């Protein structure tokens, strides 16, 4: 080896961020003008309006005095429509996958990859730029919908929103964006692995279906294997239930729905199994302060963010090692 190892490790010149904002700008422009995005925006806006209108009807009929009436906009359902939270749990992964599944492989397929990487930027800038642009697009769409819902609420309910409920609604928005981040990172990993965008999309949707449909069943079966009930003691039953809950939390959609539950329902004091003894001294039905609700879902939030970062890191390593020649 004529080149000593230490020399190569002395690092490379310049910043890995050079050119990143150019990538972000270009990708966001692409996202916002693409037909795919416009279809999804219309879909999500329609579902938002439908769900919230249904909710407003119910709220005006039933609730007279509620300090968190705006949170009910997100969570109240009226048959046959599900609540907006339910819609989001379903639509956010779809949008995120739609944004990410062809972000890397399309550059190869259009034969633009080597031309772009021949510019004075590192691969880091390209991948980070694409991820950030997709995340910003997602955030933009969700924020717009969020504002639309609050606005509808102000017009139809005629009650000024309170500070606490706005803070909760904002945290909910943040959680929703990071929930999208997981699926986005997953879709981008698949777009690095598979050269065919269709394959990448199918793989990402497959993972999503697995977690939404099958994981709850699988986690119950696994719980029976991991914590079997041998003698029928209550401890064993509790242990099995606990295992099932922990396993189900591997699925991002479970994490997200628990976050939504705790943040949008201030009266929720615990997630998962609660024994009567743990409730002694609690005044049931009274709302928790925001920071207590946040404490409740803090592990969930960090879990969502950690999973996003982990998935992105996997994609990052693979992209760095990828051969550029098509």
């Amino acid at each position: 080896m004529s080149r000593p190892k230490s020399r190569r490790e002395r690092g490379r010149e310049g910043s890995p961020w050079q050119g990143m904002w150019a990538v972000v700008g270009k990708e966001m422009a692409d996202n916002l003008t693409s037909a795919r995005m416009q279809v999804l925006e219309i879909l999500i806006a329609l579902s938002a309006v439908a769900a919230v209108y249904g909710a407003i009807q119910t709220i005006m009929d039933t609730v007279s005095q509620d300090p968190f009436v705006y949170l009910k906009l997100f969570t109240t359902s009226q048959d046959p429509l599900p609540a907006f939270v339910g819609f989001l749990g379903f639509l956010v992964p779809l949008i995120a996958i739609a944004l990410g599944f062809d972000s890397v492989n399309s550059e190869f397929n259009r034969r633009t990859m080597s031309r772009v990487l021949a510019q004075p930027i590192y691969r880091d800038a390209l991948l980070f730029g694409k991820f950030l642009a997709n995340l910003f697009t997602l955030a933009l769409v969700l924020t717009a919908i969020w504002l639309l819902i609050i606005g509808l609420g102000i017009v139809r309910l005629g009650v000024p929103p309170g500070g606490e409920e706005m803070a909760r609604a904002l945290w909910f928005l943040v959680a929703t964006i990071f929930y999208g981040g997981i699926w986005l990172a997953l879709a981008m990993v698949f777009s690095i692995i598979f050269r065919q965008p269709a394959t990448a999309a199918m793989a990402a949707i497959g993972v999503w279906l697995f977690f939404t449909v099958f994981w709850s069943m699988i986690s119950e079966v696994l719980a029976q294997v991991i914590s079997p009930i041998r003698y029928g003691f209550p401890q064993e039953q509790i242990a099995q239930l606990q295992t099932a809950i922990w396993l189900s939390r591997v699925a991002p959609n479970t994490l997200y729905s628990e976050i939504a539950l705790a943040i949008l329902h201030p009266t929720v004091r615990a997630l998962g199994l609660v024994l009567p003894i743990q409730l002694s001294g609690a005044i049931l039905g009274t709302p928790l302060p925001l920071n207590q609700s946040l404490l409740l879902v803090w592990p969930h939030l960090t879990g969502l963010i950690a999973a996003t970062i982990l998935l992105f890191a996997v994609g990052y390593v693979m992209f760095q090692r990828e051969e550029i020649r098509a």
Partner: protein
Amino acid sequence: MADFVVETRNLSKHYDGFAAVDKLNLRVREGEVFGILGPNGSGKTTTILMLLGLTEPTEGEVRVLGFDPVRQPLSVKARVGYMPDQVGFYDELTARENLIYIAKLNGIPRAEAYRRIDAALEQVGLTHVADHPVSTFSRGMKQRLGVADLLIKQPRLVILDEPTQGLDPAGALEFLNLIRDLKRQGISVILASHLLHQVQAICDRVGLFYRGRMVLEGTVQELAQQVLGGGYRVRVHAKGDTQAIMRNLRGLRDVIEVRQHEDDKYEVLAKRDLRPDVARAVVEANGNLLTLELEEPNLEEIYARYFEEVNHESAKVAA
């Protein structure tokens, strides 16, 4: 060092034990057009990617414009333009938007970028379609847009990988003229291609790649000397005493071989342009010179002959 825009020393790249590039020593001088020839899989593209720092060499040293592409890829890529084979653009964007993106990636200030983009589009003759989406472009137009794309960063060296592949003859000719323009602007050019007559028409020096090595290097004349032992071919049509003409032609200096076709047609294979000497020889043999034409050394012939020999050799080894 200063005279060479590219210099490699024992540059190698191995993929799973297979040597795509094997101890390559390549030198490209400032201001020249250097042609890289070779069959598919002979390591041309791998070499180019290593020059740009897009692939890390397994072994050996590279200097491009005095920079090391492994450690200073940004400096190299800011000064070297690369046009991959079958260059692609964002189809839904216009030609100008595509170039603006490249200018932004290069960190060129906006006003300066717009000026350079206009100048580059002008130079490649795409000004009239600057605001049309690239999806409406023909292959030749995309290829020219590729050149405009190189010009944006005002490179000192451009590397073109199979730039004329898939172009119609007129488009290819136009493209070669663009390369001549680059050279006139003082830009060094590395051109990898299969199209030998185009390489011959435009390159100052060529290197022949085979199995990851550069097996031949030099001007076409030098290669002809090495492979064909000459390469200049003078065709003579002369009436007169065949015996005397043949004797005189054979007696010339630097003649390798004289052949007679038909009655009064001769072919002289020589190491240099022998036309004046041939004319004199015919006249001195009291012959009537009718036509005299020179065929310069031909890269296709060199290429074919070289691989004929290589295959012959390897057949011998195998046997």
